[in-house]
Every structure is written in C-alpha cells, then in structure tokens.
C-alpha cells in the first residue's frame, strides 16, 4: 500500500467515526447560498452569519473554539483567539459559497472530526473536553512541517496548517491582534516623516 493511500484510508476511518449527528453524516438539503456579489456595500460593517448562514454543528463549534485557544492562547500581550470569537469567523469562512471556501470546509470539517476521533482514541473524550496537556499532545504531533510528510499525520497536519492560518488571519485582523503586532497605522496625520532614527540605526542605515 502506498503511503498516500494508507494516509487517506486513515483519514477516512477518522471521518467514519463521526457521531451520527454530525452534518457530514446527515446532509439536510438547503438552498445554496450565494456570495456577496460583485457590487457589495463596502462601507458597512459585516457580522459573521449575515451574508450566508454559519454551518458548524455545536460539536464542531466547540472543537474549533478550543483549537483556536490552543493555537493562539491569551498571553501578556493579547487575549486568545477563542476570546475574540475567531472560531465564529472560521465558521463564516468555511460556510462561504466560494470554491476555495467549499474546499476549505471539507478539510476543516474532516479535520475537526479527526481531532475528536484522535482525542477519543487517546483520552476517551472529545478534543474540547481534554486537558491542556492532552491538547498539546495531539497538536504537537500535527503542527510541524515534518508532520505533513509522516504517513500517520499527513492529512491532519494539512488540516492543522490551514486551521492555524485561518486562526491567525482572524486573530491578527482584529483590533487586539493588530495591536499585538505593533501596527500603529490607519490613522490620519498631517505629515509622514518616515522611519524614526532609532529604527534606521538598528537596521544600519544612515538617516537622510
């Protein structure tokens, strides 16, 4: 058996352990949502779920929330991604009707199922109910570039990388995330003076 085949078999087995109430098990036909079109209002503030319905099940939502908090936890600089409801943004993302988002949905939904299946296998409970130590044990196995080529964790590692990017995207576009990075722009000023002398000195450039 090739490695690819073995890993996808494992991935499918994980998906097969999905509880019966998961939406991947029981698809309810709904009218297909459309996107925001080619002429949306650009100056209003949009909320997740406003343009197309969110689609995570309660169990997926819980798993995503906990994973957001593991990927971007609170520290002395900023709150956790879960506190900023980034899991809800990820729900908005995977529920969007565009082709890339539909692809992401397949990856994310199966990945969340794998997280629960893996936590169940190792700790006999859903991922969201495991301890921090147990969460790290699972994430440590799938977070690295190296995991992407391991026969056992290749697909979950792909999921994790995508989920991490979405979490980081949702988090760092928020006011708290922008502040954490030290973004101090998007504010009008009368002059633009360029980099402070201190910055130029660090980089080794003579001030003009």
């Amino acid at each position: 058996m090739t490695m690819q085949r073995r890993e996808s078999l494992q991935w499918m087995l994980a998906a097969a352990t999905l509880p019966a109430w998961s939406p991947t098990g029981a698809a309810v036909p709904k009218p297909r949502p459309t996107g925001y079109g080619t002429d949306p209002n650009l100056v209003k503030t949009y909320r997740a779920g406003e343009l197309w319905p969110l689609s995570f099940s309660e169990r997926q939502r819980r798993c995503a929330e906990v994973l957001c908090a593991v990927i971007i936890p609170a520290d002395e600089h900023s709150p956790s991604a879960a506190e900023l409801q980034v899991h809800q943004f990820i729900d908005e993302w995977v529920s969007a009707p565009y082709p890339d988002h539909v692809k992401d949905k397949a990856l994310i939904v199966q990945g969340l199922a794998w997280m629960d299946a893996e936590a169940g296998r190792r700790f006999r409970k859903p991922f969201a109910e495991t301890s921090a130590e147990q969460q790290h044990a699972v994430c440590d196995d799938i977070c690295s570039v190296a995991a992407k080529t391991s026969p056992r964790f290749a697909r979950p590692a792909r999921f994790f990388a995508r989920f991490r990017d979405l979490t980081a995207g949702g988090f760092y576009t928020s006011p708290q995330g922008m502040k954490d990075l030290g973004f101090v722009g998007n504010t009008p000023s009368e002059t633009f003076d360029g980099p402070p002398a201190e910055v130029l000195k660090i980089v080794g450039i003579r001030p003009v």
Partner: protein
Amino acid sequence: MPFVTPRTLQKDYDVIVVGSGAGGGQTAYTLAMEGVKVLMLEAGRNYDIAAETPMFQTYADAPLRGAGTPDKPFGFYDATIDGGWAVPGEPYTRASKEDGRQFEWWRARMLGGRTNHWGRIALRNGPYDFKPHSRDGLGFDWPIGYEDLAPYYDKVEMLIGVYGSNEGLENTPDSPDGCLLPPPAARVGERLVQQRGATLGVPVVPIHRAVLTRPLDHKTIPAKLHPGNERAQRIIAQDMQARAACFWATPCSRGCSIRATYQSTAVHLPPALASGALDIVCNAMAYEVVTDKAGKATGVRFVDKTNGQHELVTGRVVVLAASACESVRILLNSKSAQFLHGVANSSGKLGRYVMDTVGSDLGGQIPLLENLPPHNEDGAGGSHLYAPWWLYQQQAKGQMNFARGYHIELGTGRRMPSMGTAAELEWLNGGTYGRQLKADARRYYGSFAYFSGRGEMIPNEQSYCEIDPAVKDKWGIPVLRFHWQWSDHETRQAAHMQKTFAEIIEAMGGKVQGKAELDGRKAIAAGGSIIHEVGGAIMGSDPQRSVTNAFCQTWDVKNLFITDGAPFASNADKNPTLTIMALAWRAADHIVERLRRKEL
C-alpha cells in the same frame, strides 16, 4: 444636468466619448474645458467616491476579513465594481488551452473604470521607448517621439498631481520644475533595498505616483494647463482646492474619498462636469460605431443596461476610450457593407499586437527587519521607492540575452494586518502554535520584502484578439477571443527578474521564500494579468501597417479617435496610465483645433 439618461439626452453633442477611465476622463476633461459639448458613455454604474470609499475600515469589518473571492479577486475593499477577471454575463474566450498562451482580462464596470483601483504608478516613457525598432530592430517605432509628448506629460503631472524626483537616469525622464510633488520619505525596508541594491548596481530611487503629497498649487498651475482660457483656469483652480493632500493612511487601491490620488472620478470628471459641457450616461454598454455613406462616424449604439433597450447617440466626432481591448471589440463589431471587417480596419491590423507587461514576483524574509520598534509605515498608500531599468548599456553592448528592460516595484513595511500577515510562517518557524506562534508573528511582522518586476513586452503576430465566431455576451454582443504567445525576450527577462530579486534578497541578508524560478516560461505571469494591456489599434505613420495616426485618429474614419491604450505601438516597462493620459490630452487638443477649423 451632467448625469443624464437616454431619455434626457441632448441632440447636438460635438463629441461622443466611450469610457470614463484614464483615456476617456482625460479626453472629456480637455474637450469640456474648451467648451466642446461632450457626451460620455460608461458601461458601468455611477460611483460616488465620497460616499462609497472604505477609507478606515479594517479587515475585521469586511466579510471573510477582506480576503479575495471570485466576486472581488483583489480583496473586498478593492475599488472595483462589477469587475475582475470575470464579469458576470460578459465572457471572453481564449484560442488556446496551453500554458503560456493564456490571456487574462481585468475589467471594471463603474464610472472611472480601472482608475479607481490602479496602483497610481505614473512613469513617463523615455525617448528610447518611442523608437524601439530603430534601436534594436524589434517591434515598431511610434510616429511620435518623446519631445512630442513631453509637454503633455508636464500638463498631466500638474493636473493630477504626481510625487517623485528627478534623478537624471538613462531613458527615465526628468520633469521640468513645478511638475512633480515632493516624494515621501522612504520606509525602512525600502531604504534597506536601496542600500543593498547599490552594492549590486541596482539604482533604487523615489517612484512616481499620482498622490498629492501636498495640495496642488492652484495659483500657478491652472494658467499653465489652460493658457488663454480663463474660464477653464477658474474651474480647475477651484477644483484643485477641493482636493485634499494625502493624510498618510489607507491604501490607494480602495480609492480615495478625499481625492488625494488620481482616479478619473476624483480628478477629471468633477471639473469637466463643472464646466457644464459634459453629460454622462452610465449603464450604457457601447457596441457599435455607426458610420454614414461617406464613411464618417455619425454616432454610437449602446445597450441601456437598466432596461435592455438599444439606443443610438450621435455626434460630430466619436472617441473610443473603452480600454484597449474593449475599444477594439467595438470597432470589430461595427460591420457594414462599407466596413466588412469592422470600422477602421482596412489595414487588417485591428486587434493585432496586443501587449501586456512582463511580470514576475519574488519575496523574501529579512532578519534585519525583525522585531523593529512599532512605527507607522502606511505612508502614501503604495511604494515610495522603485528601481528603474539600469542595464541599458549592457544591452547596447550585446551582453544581455533579451531586449528591453524592466523596473522593480517594492513591497515592504508594517502594513495593516490582513489574512496573509501571520499565515504560512512554516517555512520560517517549522510550524508552531501557542505562545510561540504569537512570538513568531510579532517577530516576522513587517520583515518581508516583495519584488515585482514589470517589463517591456515586444509586440508579436501571435498575440492578438478577434471576435469569437460563436460566443455572445448577455446583451447579445459578440465577445473577444484572445491569442497569446511570449517570445524568448519576455521569458528570459522574467528569469532575469527572478535571479536579480534573489540576489537583492540575499544582499539584504534575507531568505528567499520558495525559490527563484529560473525557467522564464514558468516565472512569467500570464498575459494580461499585470493589467497593462495595450495595443490592438496601434498608431503608425503607414496606414497599411497601423490603425491610427500620431493623433490617435483612425486612418480610415477621420472623425473617429481612440484614446485608451489601444494606439500604443510599444509597451515600455513604464506603467501605461500616464502615457494614456498624455496621448489623450494631445488627441483632444487636436480634436478641438480641427473642430474649430470645421475640419471634423
């Protein structure tokens, strides 16, 4: 009544202008300021920059955090309406399925067209750029030289407001005193590119962009723009005072509600409307130039998109500025017993020699720029520095394996965090999460440098558009089919870009993201994807081999002009917008003169 409907049209327009972007905007402006009665047809809807521009919205305010989708390919806040690589109901086709032979066509259906989102990079063509065939035997010379267009470059720069500096570099013209606004201070990353580029012989200097780094001089410029025309001077002086200078925030690609950057809707259309000589019909999809028995243009047919009705407007002169390929499409679709192959196509050259810009990009991460103290790098909402082409001498000596050059556009800085800011860091950190990921995000934020090569494509016989024999758009108008092929000059140039960018990144002490692609056929961006498509109705001095003369006037129909990028006889590495405007102003002056002499 500036914005009119087909019901409220007047009967006696001097000039019908199709399109409201850089070419149409400049044409209409110049004509209207001279009191010529102009009707402008715009295929898209009206667009109000004051009310519709998302100036300080953050990505958290947008759906999907502002990331691009098929509805908004350049991101939610991009100032493109009803446009992108695909316009719903308005397809185009491609003759080939092969890699490297694809053409992508970006359109916008809105007042002001693509000028609302453009990069604002406003470079003059240099003297060499008008006589490329004389220099290396490739492509075509223009029937004009730099000296013919220079006075119009001066005027356009003074009207729209362009920052930049005079560096005295080869084939990179200086502007006369009073034309340019001061360039903004360079960002730290740009300074580092400049410092390290110098060690490789790559000159990095202030770029020219159409952004007001200070208010326009409304006291002296109007008289230079409109000598002897006091009314025009008064109107433009007043309008200049209504444009604010840049307040050093918000990306220009969103458009600018304070009118600090050039977009047709901020600069050309308000004073042209204020003159009282311009009427505009929006949602008017032009598809045919109507001619009479004598072979003169009498008007333009269009579909009123609000109700699907077909309408005809008449005028003494017709100017197409619908974008290079759209203008070609209109002409090819204007068939009659007299013009079997489309209007202005007796040469058979209509649709031929479509050119885009050679594009290739590479990015890297620069440890020297990590963990810098927070400071505001928004600046003028785009690049402050760039590298003009620097290897003219080596090319002249035959040391290069491609003809024609490219310039380098830079992307650096602590930009407003977006979906991509802390994504895909694995190539740097191996894949982390938790507190480590947050530390990594802080460390790497603002430490990237991106290089975009933008180079000259030489026109060729295999790159052209024609009418697709089968496919029509939702209005029933036959669509364009694109043929495309690069020559070795372009693909080798793209490979040279990759090699150069990797060298600069390494000279900055940085790491290339991915790897430099040294196979030029893989390194080059698809045709059309740089959105600098020009040609298709090239100007020349021989009616057998070109579509228009030096005044953008078609050889076959003397009261028909084309003032978008279609008449370009070559496509220098310099971004085409400033040249489109300079040519349009020159053509419009010519129209005014000929109308006054009753020759049109």
